[in-house]
């Protein structure tokens, strides 16, 4: 047993030992008036009967399920007098997913709360790497390995077709190194969060509270790394050290007529690692090329998370007025600032010499403002109405910096390449106009205003209709101004306690004033030829015009005391349209436009690409049956389906023009289905309730299907083998049964059986392995170094015997 585990075990054991005698003594006596100790302890032994995949990471993705002693729960409540209380609720205290809450205080005067939560986050069952980790998130490869890869001239050739790269190729060197030298590495982290809160109510009018919380996460997390394009991609178990602290205070005044409150919160986030440096498997050192603006890097460096401060000031007020009318108003302002001391250099490639950075640090700042006013009224029993206005604004106060020489992936300083667009120095040489980039401080403002009126002419019916308009304004966006109108109708029928129906119908129409595909050009101070061409057909679904129809229905029916049936159905359908032409996404149309900026219009067909439509449907049917007071059964089944159409426009833009054959375009119809069934049984086996059986089970299946299609006659760039994506399937089956036997009124034990099985058929994850560059795959992966992340399927049978003692 490790010291950590011993320490974890010590606390609960001490608690149990100290609580038990006192509890016994108290339990044997009638609790004194106004004072008592009560609670329960649950502990026992738990064993895996069999495991298809021992300690499967997916099974323990967020939890710790040990083999052996389990201190499942401690409930402890102490009320020494009528006014004071101390409650402890501790779960799984010997484990790495423990949760403890201590609540204490003097009734009607003050209350304190201490909470502590731990949980793990596992990313994979196995992972291995060639990289060695050093301090400050530096990952290195053996020099000899890098040299060998660099010395190999050919990347990937399998001349004899034996599915093994030929000797002397880079792919062969990498493959052999992974097979012989990769070391196992843990990819996961532990979260520890805790806090203390104190609330005092000196009079019934006033409440003051103060809370402090902290959240720590440390371990590793998968981090993919791209050197340049896909020639030497890599992945490492990056160090993960996130620290967040919160301090919150509030004051509230409440009376029969009004509530007024003030909230102040502040938070500091710090990361132990703000950048990551790693070796390039293709080059030992930075290596020059014939082009002075291109040099192969021996190392790459990327930024990770950044430190930040966050402060929120909020006020709210609510007033009860005559005619059962209430006005609520709230206003808050959040300021978030980035707290990194300095910007990283543009590159660590010693052979590239970009212009100096425009600033030594990035003083990023967001100011979020939120305000709301709402009035609701029930002037008559039959009538209610309400109106509201909300504003949410993200104001980006960050500077917009211009980087004169943008460096791409520590590899090159790209040039414009089209004198028609950017000939900054006027020498008509497209090879020396270095691309400059400017960051765009994106922000937006959302305003909602609406009203509702509800009518309940009879006690069993209530209907309401509402209208809301949302206006959204953005900076640096293809759509800078859009409105969305929502009309909603709700119909609730409650004719008796035995049945009820609730229905909601909704219609939303979102319209943008324009769609500017050139918006991203603002990021190119001297211009750039390909950006607009990349975006010209794209219509992003969260910006486009959209019509949405939605309906939900919830019904329950209890024909007898024994039977109850319930059902829920939802439907939502979205259609996306181009704000410029009104055409539905997925349509093609002909445009005349100067595409290469030579002042001559070109004529071409353009596909409106993006999500064309989506439809979400779900329904649930369930029943509960209580044949006797001792027996209860319930079962339900839920089916969910999300379908969306997607059209993709393949572009290979070079200097503003490129292959623009509409036959390259392709699309897909995606269907994600979820089927979930639940069953539960509660049964008292004997009249004296000493034996009790509980069964809880569920089965959930998810499938993802992507069917692809070209346009009629399509054959992208001569390759006609567009295939259907393999179907993705996940299945989770959970079943647990508990047989509980009461030995005494305050002592019982339970024998439990827990079955859980998860399996996934996921083509994109199932192939993950540290070396993925074998022949017949994407040739660009021949030199790739990955971790090989994959959750393995598991089937677990677990039995346990748990004692429960109430005192």
């Amino acid at each position, binding site marked *: 047993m490790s010291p950590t585990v011993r320490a974890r075990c010590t606390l609960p054991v001490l608690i149990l030992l100290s609580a038990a005698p006192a509890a016994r003594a108290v339990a044997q006596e009638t609790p004194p008036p106004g004072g008592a100790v009560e609670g329960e302890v649950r502990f026992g032994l738990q064993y895996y009967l069999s495991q298809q995949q021992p300690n499967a990471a997916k099974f323990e993705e967020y939890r710790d399920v040990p083999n052996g002693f389990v201190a499942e729960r401690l409930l402890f409540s102490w009320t020494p007098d009528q006014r004071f209380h101390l409650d402890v609720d501790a779960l799984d205290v010997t484990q790495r997913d423990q949760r403890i809450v201590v609540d204490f205080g003097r009734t009607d005067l003050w209350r304190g709360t201490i909470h502590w939560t731990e949980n793990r986050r596992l990313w994979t069952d196995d992972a291995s790497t060639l990289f060695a980790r050093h301090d400050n998130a530096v990952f290195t490869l053996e020099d000899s390995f890098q040299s060998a890869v660099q010395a190999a001239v050919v990347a990937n050739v399998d001349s004899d077709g034996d599915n093994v790269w030929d000797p002397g190729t880079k792919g062969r060197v990498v493959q052999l190194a992974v097979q012989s030298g990769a070391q196992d590495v843990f990819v996961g982290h532990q979260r520890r969060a805790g806090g203390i809160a104190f609330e005092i109510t000196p009079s019934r009018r006033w409440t003051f509270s103060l809370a402090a919380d902290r959240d720590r996460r440390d371990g590793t997390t998968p981090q993919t790394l*791209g050197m340049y394009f896909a020639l030497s991609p890599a992945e490492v178990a990056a160090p993960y050290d996130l620290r967040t602290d919160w301090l919150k205070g509030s004051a509230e005044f409440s009376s029969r007529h009004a509530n007024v409150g003030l909230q102040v919160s502040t938070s500091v986030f710090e990361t132990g690692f703000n950048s990551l440096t790693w070796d390039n498997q293709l080059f030992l050192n930075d290596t020059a090329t014939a082009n002075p603006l291109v040099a192969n890097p021996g190392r790459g460096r990327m*930024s990770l998370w950044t430190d930040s401060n966050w402060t929120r000031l909020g006020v709210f007020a609510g007033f009860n007025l005559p005619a059962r009318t209430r006005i609520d108003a709230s206003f808050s302002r959040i300021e978030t600032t980035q707290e990194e001391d300095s910007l990283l250099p543009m590159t660590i490639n010693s052979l590239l010499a970009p212009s100096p950075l425009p600033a030594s640090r990035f003083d990023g700042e967001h100011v979020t403002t939120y305000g709301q006013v709402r009035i609701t009224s029930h002037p008559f029993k039959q009538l209610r109405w309400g109106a509201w206005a909300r504003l949410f604004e993200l104001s980006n106060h960050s500077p917009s910096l211009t980087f004169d020489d943008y460096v791409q992936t520590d590899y090159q300083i790209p040039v414009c390449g089209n004198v028609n667009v950017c000939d900054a120095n006027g020498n008509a040489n497209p090879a020396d106009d270095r691309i400059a980039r400017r960051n765009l401080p994106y922000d937006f403002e959302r305003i909602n205003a609406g009203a509702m009126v509800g009518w309940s002419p009879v006690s069993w019916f209530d209907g309401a209709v509402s209208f809301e308009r949302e206006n959204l304004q953005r900076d640096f966006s293809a759509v800078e101004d859009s409105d969305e109108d929502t009309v909603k109708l709700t119909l609730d029928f409650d004719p008796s306690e035995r049945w009820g129906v609730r229905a909601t119908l909704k219609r939303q129409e979102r319209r943008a004033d324009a769609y500017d595909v050139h918006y991203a050009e603002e990021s190119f101070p001297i211009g750039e030829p390909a950006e607009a061409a990349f975006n010209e057909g794209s219509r992003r679904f969260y910006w486009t015009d959209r019509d949405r129809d939605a309906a939900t229905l919830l019904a329950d029916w209890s024909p007898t005391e024994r039977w109850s049936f319930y059902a829920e159905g939802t439907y939502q359908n979205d259609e996306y349209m181009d704000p410029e032409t009104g055409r539905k996404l997925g349509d093609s149309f002909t445009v005349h436009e100067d595409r290469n900026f030579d002042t001559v219009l070109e004529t071409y067909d353009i596909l409106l690409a993006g999500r064309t439509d989506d439809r979400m449907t779900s329904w649930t049917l*369930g029943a509960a049956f209580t044949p006797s007071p001792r027996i209860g059964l319930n079962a339900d089944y839920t089916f969910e389906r999300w379908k969306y159409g997607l059209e993709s426009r393949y572009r290979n833009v070079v200097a503003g023009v490129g292959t623009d054959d509409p036959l390259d375009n392709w699309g897909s119809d995606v269907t994600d289905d979820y089927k979930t069934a639940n069953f539960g049984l509660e049964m008292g086996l004997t009249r004296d309730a000493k034996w009790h059986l509980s069964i809880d089970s569920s089965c959930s299946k998810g499938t993802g299907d992507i069917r692809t299609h070209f346009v009629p006659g399509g054959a992208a760039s001569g390759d006609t083998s567009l*295939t259907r994506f393999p179907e993705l399937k996940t299945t989770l089956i959970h079943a647990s049964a508990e047989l509980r036997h009461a030995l005494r009124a305050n002592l019982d034990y339970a024998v439990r059986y827990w079955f859980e099985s998860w399996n*996934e058929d996921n083509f994109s994850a199932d192939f993950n392995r540290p070396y*993925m560059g074998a022949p017949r795959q994407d040739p660009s992966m021949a030199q790739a170094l990955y971790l090989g992340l994959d959750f393995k399927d598991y089937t677990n049978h677990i039995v346990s015997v748990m004692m429960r003692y109430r005192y």
Partner: protein
Amino acid sequence: MKGERPVTPTFPRAARLGGVVLSVCLAAAIPALAEDPKPQEQPPAANEPAKETPAENPQGAYVGSEACAACHEEVVNGHARTAHGRTQAKTLSGAAGCESCHGPGGAHVESQGDPKKIRRPRLLPAAEQSAICLSCHERGEQVHWQGSPHEGRGLSCLTCHKIHHPADAPVPAHLLLKQTEFDTCGTCHLKRKASLMRSAHMPLREGTMTCSSCHNAHGTISVALLRQDSINENCYSCHAEKRAPMLWEHPPVRENCLTCHDPHGSLHPRMQIAKQPRMCQQCHDEARHPTQPYSDAAGGPEFFPNSRMFDRGCVNCHSQIHGSNHPAGMRFLR
């Protein structure tokens, strides 16, 4: 090309709305605060019956909880274990104990327990049920109940909470009607209950989170009963690493986490709403990045993914997709 970004004042439209909010607050506050009866500051002791006469209330006079216990001993004993049973506070009408919610018990006692002569909250219309609770609890978490979606659909406090629990069993947290919060919410939100079983999910199933980690069912100032001011602020409350202003922002990330993630669970890793690379391609055309699922496995039965399709798809290289602070991170590669 557009012009330079206009300078935004610190409090643009927000300041105007804030002014309106404060004006409304002040205007309503003065009379509202003035009307509050002072004597309630110091209520009489809990064991003293309130001085209300039968003439004032058809339920008769207050008789105190001890009178209730004479017939309802089990209920009173169970109730005594809860915070309601411990409180000494009185309602604004001066009632305490059982009569805080059930009203004066005088007529009920005099009639030898006639159930029609005592207020039985569960039989009242939803709004009246809630009004009883709100007479004390219209504060803190419950301050925005009126006008909330649940209130609008005719729910009451008793839809989810049960005030009386047996004396011999643990009292559910927050006096919930069901043993767990998830069971309580899952009574109506059946689709959400099912989504908990999805492959990629928040740790609700494991108990680390609950519905109320993100939502306040009693009503909030935000959309979807979210606890924070916006969807993103809700996510940042745990994922604080994603909140920092970035040199290179990814607009959909900053605007709404739900553009790409489904927090209630998904078939796809990291709770993404769609499969890679199609998720990114909903917004991004394929330029230099052909991602058609061509199969190179002409001679084999297996499907071999290419580098843009496996695992994180586009994010294999564009790994800093939530935003980058690297000067060369415009395409989220650094």
